[in-house]
């Protein structure tokens, strides 16, 4: 029942976000990060891109092309609508305090005790468990090469990588690289816009489109099915602490460089996601151009 309610709320957010036209707010003009806000322009998304109905895979390339054309026209950094800014700022501060007061000290202590190689192995183990998400995302994006790569990676790393603790698949000889994709990128490939900016407590910055990935991760992560519930909580906490211990300092650097860390985080997030979408559509175009006997697609 709880899962159904969560899914329903996320679906409402998704539909609402996709229908929302992002516009520059007063707070955006007043504040800005040292890096990107001064260069940001208003994004005006067409109603076609904002329709709540995802494009069919047949129209995928057309929608992706329109989306890419808009990005090209924008040229530089793009902002995201932030109608929930008061709520988002509150959540940002909550997450900030959670990081500095709880997560960072625990991660630092954990990092002192556990050698870095072991932490990288643990990260690799949890990454291997994320195979169903990446595999399904590739299939839904009709990226069969990516899906085959993920299947190969999972098999090799599980059988010869000590259950995923090692990553022989990414080595020079096999060169099966992890597919950097998720359900949010899947929806982006169908032409679904990112919508508006939302900061979830604990989970961090997101958008309605990318929040679908949060739900997908929950249902496809094997750790979610560990019983009783506190074993699942401990496993996921360990994953977060382990990953944090390997990236201590990155968030602090972003904060330090920014006049308004909240806006810097928002801009960094949207740039990060846009780059991923561009990277994915570029890769798809490159694969299409390499296929013999097919017409060359309109590309960048």
């Amino acid at each position, binding site marked *: 029942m709880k899962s159904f309610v969560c899914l329903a709320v996320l679906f409402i957010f998704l539909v609402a976000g996709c229908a929302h036209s992002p516009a520059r707010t007063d707070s955006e003009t007043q504040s800005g990060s040292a890096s990107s806000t001064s260069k940001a322009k208003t994004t005006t998304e067409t109603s076609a891109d904002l329709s709540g109905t995802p494009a069919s895979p047949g129209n995928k390339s057309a929608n992706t092309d329109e989306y890419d054309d808009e990005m090209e026209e924008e040229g530089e950094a793009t902002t995201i609508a932030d109608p929930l800014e008061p709520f988002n700022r509150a959540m940002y501060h909550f997450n900030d305090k959670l990081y500095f007061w709880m997560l960072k000290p625990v991660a630092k202590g954990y990092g002192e005790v556990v050698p870095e190689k072991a932490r990288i192995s643990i990260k690799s183990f949890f990454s291997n468990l994320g195979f169903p998400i990446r595999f399904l995302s590739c299939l839904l994006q009709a990226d069969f090469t990516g899906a085959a790569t993920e299947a190969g990676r999972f098999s090799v790393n599980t*059988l010869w990588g*000590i*259950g995923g603790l*090692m990553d022989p698949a990414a080595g020079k*000889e*096999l060169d099966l690289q992890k597919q950097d994709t998720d359900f949010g990128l899947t929806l982006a490939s169908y032409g679904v816009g990112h919508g508006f900016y939302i900061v979830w407590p604990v989970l961090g910055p997101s958008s309605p489109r990318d929040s679908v990935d949060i739900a997908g991760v929950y249902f496809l992560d094997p750790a979610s099915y560990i019983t009783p519930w506190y074993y699942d909580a401990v496993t996921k906490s360990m994953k977060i602490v382990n990953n944090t211990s390997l990236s201590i300092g990155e968030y602090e650097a972003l904060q330090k460089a920014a006049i308004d860390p909240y806006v810097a985080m928002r801009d960094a997030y949207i740039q990060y996601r846009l780059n991923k979408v561009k990277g994915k559509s570029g890769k798809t175009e490159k694969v299409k151009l390499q296929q013999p006997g097919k017409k060359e697609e309109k590309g960048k």
Partner: protein
Amino acid sequence: MLIFAVAGISTAGIFGPPQTVSREAGGLNTAIGYWHQQGNLTSVSEYTFRRNEIYSQVSYGGHNIWEVYGRIGVSDLKISDAFRSVNSATVTSGSDFTENWKLFGTLGAKGFLPVNEIFGLGAFLQVNYYFNNFTGDVTGTDAGVPFAADLKIQNMWDVNFGIGMQFTLPHKIKLYTGPYIYYAEAKANLSANIPGLEFGTGGVLLKNKAFAGGFIGADIPLAKGFHLNIEGRYSERLSLGAAVSYTY
């Protein structure tokens, strides 16, 4: 306690080539393997046992001359006619002892002395231990009175020592062969004394009847750091296995 002699009751997994497949500078190699083993159990009667094992192995070796390895795997065990009754008044529901997928672990070490580019000599030591008991149930009637009992085979372990000769062929294919000696032991305990059945509550110590055997195998490099290792072993009965390893 009765003592039964068992030929080749243990020895989990292949021995592998005397020379490590790890990189010369030192490194890991991992493998997955399968082993099928057959042997004889002899007391008053003779029984045949069969075992299938799959395992995962992690090894570390270096300088092309040494390697230490550990394995974890699961094994089944089938003893044909274990519950066969020699007494006509005792009728059992089934005669075979069967148990599936019990955990075992292996530790081993090997050293290699290259004589020239083609030939070398090596030695190895391998110890296997089964963490779980194999348990099989038997039901039946004894002079019309129904009974139920279970046979536990517990504390199964073995140690193997062997010497191998290795020949390196073109394309870095390695052929190896050699003799080995071993000691294996397990305890068998039936939960009830059933007339006509050889096992009883007093417990039976199973030990190896033959203490030596021979092995032959090949290690074939495949593409992209993978190796295929196939091996056969003979000690009263033939056993076969294969493993695919990856060198980091």
